């Protein structure tokens, strides 16, 4: 099996789906001839032509807005937002149009699409090339939100997302675009949306993470194991649909949970996870559910190492929770 990195896996998924389904089109800023600023769409323009790999003007609202019309008319657009930080000019189309189109038309119309966007910090991008806006979209009924952490999942989840009848926000962990490598099957395969993956079984503390932070959490749970704390690590992969059963099962076993995310803590997706766990596992909880997150500031430039919830901070939280 070929070994790919995340960006190659994304590229492979796009190519696979474009070959299979002529209605799949890719669009965005610099995605055409150039192949995308991260090279996610490299080679697609050559293979599928300018009609299906579309360089757009510089306007995220226009990208998503035209994608809505394409989807309504039967194409399956995969718009790229160059950085998740730049998704906000498209917010109205996403929140008020994409998310509500099926509902508001009583199911007469739908606009399935996959909005891909690199998200997150750790690349010295400051606050306009590092944000993790997933919570905004999880808070918007009608949208699905997927965040892979590795090449295998990236490909399988992206294929599923493209085939999904609902609009999907697909956030790619740019910090590990090239760093995370792994075996990726050739050709098609799907990873169903809404299934978390238990990447380490353990009995003492449940750790929940996704995207780039899964790697930090993974390191932390290894260090925790060395320090004698046996963690169970879940890679959520899809935040909406959420595999609440897997979470419940794990926390009912361990009685303890640590949640990790990059976005600012307040009102981040960790808050929802904490609330859900507490609602569903109240009688099993043996320690406060603890969030290890980005701080409540814009994403900083120089102190990004300090800002990101990396392994040492996660480890600390695991130990505190375990010792509670």
């Amino acid at each position: 099996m070929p070994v790919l990195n995340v960006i190659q896996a994304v590229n492979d998924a796009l190519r696979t789906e474009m070959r299979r389904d002529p209605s799949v089109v890719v669009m965005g800023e610099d995605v055409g001839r150039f192949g995308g600023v991260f090279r996610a769409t490299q080679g697609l323009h050559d293979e599928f032509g300018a009609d299906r790999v579309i360089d757009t003007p510089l306007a995220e609202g226009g990208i998503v807005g035209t994608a809505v019309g394409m989807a309504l008319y039967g194409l399956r657009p995969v718009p790229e937002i160059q950085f998740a930080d730049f998704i906000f000019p498209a917010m109205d189309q996403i929140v008020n149009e994409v998310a509500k189109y099926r509902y508001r038309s009583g199911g007469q119309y739908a606009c399935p699409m996959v909005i891909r966007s690199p998200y997150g910090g750790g690349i010295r991008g400051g606050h306009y090339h590092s944000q993790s806006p997933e919570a905004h979209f999880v808070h918007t009924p009608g949208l699905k939100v997927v965040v892979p952490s590795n090449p295998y999942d990236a490909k399988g989840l992206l294929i599923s997302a493209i085939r999904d009848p609902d609009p999907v926000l697909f956030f790619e962990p740019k910090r590990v675009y090239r760093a995370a490598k792994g075996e990726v099957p050739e050709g098609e395969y799907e990873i169903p949306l809404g299934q978390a993956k238990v990447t380490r079984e353990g009995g003492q503390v449940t750790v929940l993470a996704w995207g780039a932070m899964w790697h930090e959490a993974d390191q932390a749970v290894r260090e925790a194991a060395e320090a004698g704390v046996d963690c169970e690590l879940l890679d959520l992969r899809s935040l909406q649909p959420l595999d609440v059963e897997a979470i419940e099962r794990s926390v009912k076993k361990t009685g303890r949970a640590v949640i990790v995310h990059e976005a600012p803590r307040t009102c981040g997706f960790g808050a929802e996870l904490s609330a859900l766990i507490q609602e569903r596992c109240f009688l099993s909880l043996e320690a406060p559910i603890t969030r290890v997150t980005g701080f409540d500031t814009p994403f900083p430039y120089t102190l990004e190492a300090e800002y990101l919830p990396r392994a040492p901070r996660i480890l600390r939280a695991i130990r505190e929770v375990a010792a509670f």
Partner: protein
Amino acid sequence: MRREIHESFVRRNGHDVHGEELTPFSQRPAAHRPEKEFPLERVLADDGSADLARSHLPQERLLPLYRLMVLNRALDERMIQLQRQGRIGFYIGSIGEEATVLGAAEGMAPQDWIFPCYREHGAAILRGLPLAKFLCDLLGNAGDLMEGHQMPCHEAFRPGRFASISSPIATQIPQAVGAGWAARIKKDDMVPLVYFGEGATSANDFHTGLNFAGVRKVPVVFVCRNNGWAISVPRERQTAAVTFAEKALAYGMKGERVDGNDLLAVYEATRLARARAAAGEGPTLIECVTYRMEGHSTSDDPRVYRPAELVDPWRKKDPILRLKGHLVWRGLLSESEDAAIRDAVAAEIQAALREAEALPSKPPLESLFDGVYAQPLWQQREQLEELRSAVAADPRVARLRGEG
């Protein structure tokens, strides 16, 4: 020596490469004259006559369209009444703008999609939306195609290729562009028509929509209903451009400006724009100059911000009177025929209303969760159960204060 070079240069440089005289930066006149470039095109004269060489609307379509305009007007008037009586929650209509709404829709091919703003119920009916179904939408009742999800007047009608209405202004514009682009990619002969008010030209999505369409020559027809007002804001507070049609220039596309109360002119401009789009000549922005005769909607009272003197001159430009005059001029309509149409239309509305009001006033409880996703997620399933048991335990859950 320097000075000589300088003087020789002044002479040489005083003329540009084409030999025309250079003016100092500050004194160049504005060459752009929108009133000339974007004249207000009309087909119907005030006396009902018309230059038939300029009109291509098939004669047999005149009466049906007239009937639709009359229906549209009667419907609006009746619904405003109903809203006042508390029988529907809200209404927004097109009194005075019927020629724009119907002329544009008529100018398109049957397979073309229509992306409405929120005043184009006439176009939906032209596309086959049964009147009773429209009334179910206003009632949000068990017969509502939208399952009671949307406010009144936010209908969608897929069989008529009439897209879904949303309130946020201008969002439908790039969507229409996307549909036209998709049709071209699929090699379909389909040109979307998109309606919006002149207020919408200020919004983000007007800009991105027209720009995307312009740069790729996407087949689409943009119809700006310039009815003079965006709620209380008059058109001159919306833009400093002299016309809305000239905004087309910024996007490298063709702009047209027509008398929006002249059904034949609107039809003609739309038909030609459609033909150009289908021929790969790109999109057109058509400004239809009309007037919002009533309040913005039933929630609005225009007397607070709009003196009656402004409205009065438009009364004699009424698009229905204009078309009637033309039909009379062509010998296609007598007063008694006209009266018969009006009676038939009133009866039709009454019958549809009876049909719609006979249905249960609420769609079923589970419809609340239908269509958020193609299949409900666990949240919707759990929440439906939560709601069911809450209603069972205390029926007040399903009643608004003041109700029952």
